[in-house]
């Protein structure tokens, strides 16, 4: 059971990583990072059970908190930089799109 869960989570992590690599927009990457963070929390939990060290669930809690703060910081950054771009040259507003 735990092994199945671990494998499923690992595969999902790989998929999320692929999305982060492909992009194409900034928001896709943020989405991928957020997904990746959630999966990390899950994997830590599952691995804690697999190792028999359930006292390490605190770590999962810490990861969840940090992940949330990270995503918030990213959004703050995106918002602020698009605000800057708008004040610098109001004509452009496709700032979110940075297709490679």
């Amino acid at each position, binding site marked *: *059971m*735990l092994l*199945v*869960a671990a494998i*499923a*989570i690992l*595969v*999902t*992590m*790989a*998929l*999320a990583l*692929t*999305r982060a690599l*492909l*992009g*194409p*927009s900034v*928001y*896709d990457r*943020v*989405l*991928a990072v*957020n*997904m990746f963070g*959630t*999966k990390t*929390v*899950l994997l830590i*939990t*599952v691995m804690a*059970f697999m190792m028999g060290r*359930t006292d390490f*669930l*605190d770590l*999962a*809690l810490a990861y*969840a*908190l940090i*992940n*949330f703060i990270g*995503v*918030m910081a990213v*959004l703050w950054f*995106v*918002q602020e930089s*698009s605000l800057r771009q708008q004040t610098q040259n109001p004509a452009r*507003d*496709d*700032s*979110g*799109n940075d*297709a*490679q």
Partner: protein
Amino acid sequence: MSEILDLIAGLLVVTGCVFVLAGGIGALRMPDFYTRIHGASLTDSLGPVLVLGGLMVNAGLTLISVKLAAVMLLLMVTSPTATYALANAALLAGLKPEGVEHDTTEPEKPA
């Protein structure tokens, strides 16, 4: 009794895993950002809840379950919030859903 509990736990965890996987595939295969976030976010809430719920059943009524419940609660709160804020920011920044301006094609693959 314990076999039934184990079965329930296993079932919950495996169902959760299916959702988690589905979310991953959705985030990868969907054609544009809004469909991707749709695929990823819904499963991102349900999948972990099911997996953690399964583990809680497994652990029984102990401190472990309380910690798992805390993690679950936290994920249930933060994940939708992050999704909302992300979609909102994307929309405000002017990212258009696929098909509004041009037809639905695969996003171009980078080298």
